[in-house]
């Protein structure tokens, strides 16, 4: 890991893009948060708990988390993004729910649904990770019980070098591997791990190890954003 690699924007291998986080950005919502990493901006809003319909989806023991990922039509760098649900956004809704649910305790709201709507107003890779990071802050802001925050980052490899937080330019390199990872930073437990591309076992383990300190840095920022709201 000590070898110096060259990234197109001059970052070191474990450097992230500039980040910014803010909580309470939507005053009308129960909880809300904005997370910006490089050119990717995610705005998360929490609604509910409300009655879950259709009824057969209800869980009599606990509330359910439902995530809604949405890329705004002007958010991409190229063509207009077609609005509305797509195969890709459905998958991301699912992985977001699975990434956030282990941290969240909704047993006080049986039969209900808690909705997290995440809008990506500008995208430059790493959107699902930005969405999860923003969603975790918004859920905490709404006052739900969580055993830990959830922080997410995309690690990966470019030309065989393991790097953190790929941007679109890096992701589009032909042999680039993208590994979105979400973690509960205090417990150091992984709640999301996806892999897109071909990678050796060693490189994968190295990438997962790299994600830990990076997620902790993101968690520190999330923490700061939440406490700042009440200063």
């Amino acid at each position: 890991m000590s070898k110096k690699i060259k990234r197109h924007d001059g970052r070191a291998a474990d450097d992230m893009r500039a980040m910014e986080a803010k909580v309470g950005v939507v005053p009308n919502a129960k909880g809300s948060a904005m997370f910006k990493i490089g050119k990717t901006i995610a705005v998360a809003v929490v609604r509910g708990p409300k009655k879950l319909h259709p009824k057969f989806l209800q869980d009599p023991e606990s509330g359910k988390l439902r995530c809604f990922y949405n890329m705004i039509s002007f958010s991409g760098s190229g063509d207009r993004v077609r609005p509305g649900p797509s195969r890709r956004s459905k998958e991301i809704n699912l992985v977001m729910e699975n990434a956030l649910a282990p941290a969240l305790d909704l047993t006080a709201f049986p039969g209900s649904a808690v909705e997290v709507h995440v809008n990506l107003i500008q995208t430059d890779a790493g959107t699902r990770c930005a969405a999860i990071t923003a969603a975790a802050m918004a859920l905490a802001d709404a006052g739900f019980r969580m055993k830990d925050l959830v922080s997410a980052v995309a690690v990966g490899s470019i030309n065989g070098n393991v790097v953190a937080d790929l941007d679109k330019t890096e992701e589009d390199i032909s042999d680039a591997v993208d590994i979105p990872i979400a973690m509960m930073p205090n417990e150091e437990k992984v709640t999301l791990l996806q892999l897109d591309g071909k990678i050796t076992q060693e490189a994968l383990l190295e990438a997962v190890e790299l994600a830990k300190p990076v997620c902790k840095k993101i968690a520190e920022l999330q923490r700061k954003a939440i406490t700042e709201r009440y200063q």
Partner: protein
Amino acid sequence: MGELFVKERQIVVPGDKLASGMDYLPAGGAYRDGEEIRSSVVGILGINGRVLRVIALKTHYNPRPGDMVIAKITDMTNSLWFAKVDSFRDGLMTLREVPEYVDDGADLTQFYNFGDYVLAKVAAVGRTNLMLTLKGPGLRKISGGRIIEINSAKVPRVIGKQGSMISLLKDKTGCRIIVGQNGLVWVQGAPEHELVAVDAINYINEKGHLQGLTDKVSDLLDKAMKNVVVHDSEEKPQKDKPKKKAKEESDDEEEAPTRRAAGKKAKKTAKRGSKK
């Protein structure tokens, strides 16, 4: 001896390590994870001897039997009203839980109509519904004034210790105020004074976690009341009224006659309805 990682009254977020070792005990929004005590909510830490308690800054209302709540009538069937107390539970109010006599087959809108607010008591709480009752001192339909919503975590702040905050609000603005445990607040007075009271309550909702809140709210009320211009001479604050008991139920005695009158009226109209 266990180690403490945070200071009293510090703001903590979910996952924050509060203390290690078995000497400390978790309470409120804190939980034990092996050797460590962590926070599970965004809140303020209170230390009481060995007990570490995290008081949440925002919560969802958790109904309990006996709570006084302000509920909005949303629907009705032949035998009961649905009232919204909580965002995901149905609040049910049956015919026998209202003070008026309701004839079989009577038009229920004559008593409590869609959109009416009632000051009710939670009788029982189920998994997906809760039972409300209007039988009890001071429980009634709310008319006039305005309803605002605050977070239910801030209800104790608006009431204050022994009702100190709410009596401050009532004395300074001359408004009648009822705080429901579910976070709905009813404010009634001269329109200008209502606005002052609403601003102050919203301020408590936003800044209720700060220290010296009573002084801040007092200053805010004094300043705002100085600038109030009452346009209609009839609607001056009724300062000559006897001071009310410093409790949220304080309006009870005062309200009782009007409630009875309203009930009579409702009965009359109901009779007319049933004759048809």
